């Protein structure tokens, strides 16, 4: 509880942010700063499409087993990039219209967004090396 409050103050996040939705404390502050849950369409516009840094968008669902494996793994690899790339998480049941707009069919679907455009994409689970390559390509390109 103390950790949650400390982190909340650190980031000035609303209480209904990432921590509240996930109920899971992030291990490191680096991971916290680079990962967030998309709240709605305009939040997506602000923090993903208008982001100065490239963003990987993880479309996932509560009922999706593989998503529970890919999610943390991708977060870890994003954190390793030391702020050069951010990660946005979108629950497709909460944000169905957004998921449909970005043509998500199976989950997990991960989009790479740079300067408002989708520049890369994959569907399903990837291992850490594959994720690192995906992220490095997004940052480098």
């Amino acid at each position, binding site marked *: 509880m103390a950790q949650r409050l400390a982190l909340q103050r650190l980031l000035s996040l609303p209480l209904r942010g990432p921590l509240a939705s996930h109920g899971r404390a992030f291990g490191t502050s680096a991971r916290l700063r680079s990962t967030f849950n998309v709240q709605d369409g305009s939040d997506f516009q602000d923090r993903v499409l208008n982001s100065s840094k490239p963003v990987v968008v993880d479309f996932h*669902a509560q009922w999706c087993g593989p998503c529970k494996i890919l999610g943390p793994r991708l977060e870890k690899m994003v954190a390793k990039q030391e702020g050069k790339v951010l990660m946005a998480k979108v629950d497709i049941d909460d944000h*169905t219209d957004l998921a449909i707009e970005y043509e*998500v069919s199976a989950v997990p679907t991960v989009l790479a967004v740079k300067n408002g455009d989708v520049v890369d994409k994959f569907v399903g689970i990837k291992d850490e090396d594959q994720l690192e390559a995906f992220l490095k390509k997004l940052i480098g390109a």
Partner: protein
Amino acid sequence: SQRAWSGAGLCRGRGGSRGKNEYDLLVIGGGSGGLACAKEAAQFGRKVAVLDYVEPSPQGTIWGLGGTCVNVGCIPKKLMHQAALLGSALKDAQHYGWNISQPVHHTWSVMAQAVQNYVKSLNWGHRVQLQDKKVKYFNVKGSFADPHTVRGLTKAGKETVITADNIVIATGGRPKYPTDIAGAREYGITSDDLFWLKESPGKTLVVGASYVSLECAGFLTGIGLDTTVMMRSIPLRGFDQQMASLVTEHMESYGTKFLKRCFPTKVEKLKSNRLQVTWKNADLNKEETDSFDTVMWAVGRAPDTKTLNLETIGVKTNSETGKIIVDASEATSVPHIYAVGDITEGRPELTPTAIAAGKLLAQRLFGQSSELMDYDNVPTTVFTPLEYGCVGLSEEAAVQRHGSDNIEVYHAYYKPLEFTVAERDAAQCYMKMVCLREREQRILGLHFIGPNAGEVIQGFALGIKCGATYPQMMKTVGIHPTCAEEVTKLHITKRSGLDATVTGC
């Protein structure tokens, strides 16, 4: 083969004023029938929209796109039935050499979450399918403003107005609550809620004699819960009654308690949060009472038409059932307005018939087809702990239609091989075939109680559809060792009065 045009009914809905209305087809209801119709129509390149909206149950339960079957019917029912069967299998397993410590325990929340997650994945799948097939989807509650205009209201109260050349009503049904029992609505749940419970329902009373009641009571018993079924009169009304009795007999030996010829008078909440149910026992002519954790009403389903505003536009409904009256082409009393699925009068309340009817309707409207839906010889299965599958006429219906002198009933009590080593009682494992006595001895109906009844009956449904006869069945070689092979070997008639017990090898 294509049916011939049957007349005026098929001319309707064609050559509608294209361009005046926003959509070629508007479907109200995103369940089995509605989605099938919409997707089929879209295949013909038409502009199609679907409205789907789930009014919360009195207990507050809601669900996503896909209708009753996906969310609160066939799918979660069969999965929970499977959970219960696995429990029995674990008990049998010891006899087959497995070291499993008894008694085995079941955790409701693990099963419920797995089932609910699967259902949610289906909701999403349907959403994606509509998108892929370019069907516009609105999560709104629709009501008619005029024969070509529907008003849709979102949960937040925002209004959308949609116009269409053709409209299909496929809003299905919802479980009924008794109106004359105090506490019924306040304290009771229905199948709408059962599958979405996060915690175990505990000691449960299921009121009703329908397949919903028996199937739910069956799997609740199977997962180890203290379960009672309360029936006012006969079980499975409309089904072959000999088979219905065998089903309930098996459930009794399986552990489900039955309160026969009883009907509830009130439901009260106790301080312990349990529910006290009082009922009248018609046989003993006295009042009885007991307490339960959960009371589930399975006393029938009512069509979802109240808020559609059908009277305003003149769509005729059956005064007794409230269901929409349709002709053989699924047309209502209003031109360009059709209905499919559970909402329609006189049709089976089944997913496959709704889907087939929806698809054929779309093909007739937009695809130059004239084929009508054939509602004869529709096979079905009741997924009670010992399953009952059937196709064609019940023995009673055959007798009524042809006279008992003109039909022959071949029957057999059999024992599934798998039950032998497991030392399981097969007293209710039974099958019968009702045939015409004259000339080719056409098979009118086939009834099977046993494991995997649905799988067994499905294949035979094709035979019945093709007009199979008793001699043809006898020429069909059985697969050994199976339960289904006993169908091909049926030879003892009820008329002979001989003992109908057959043995395997």
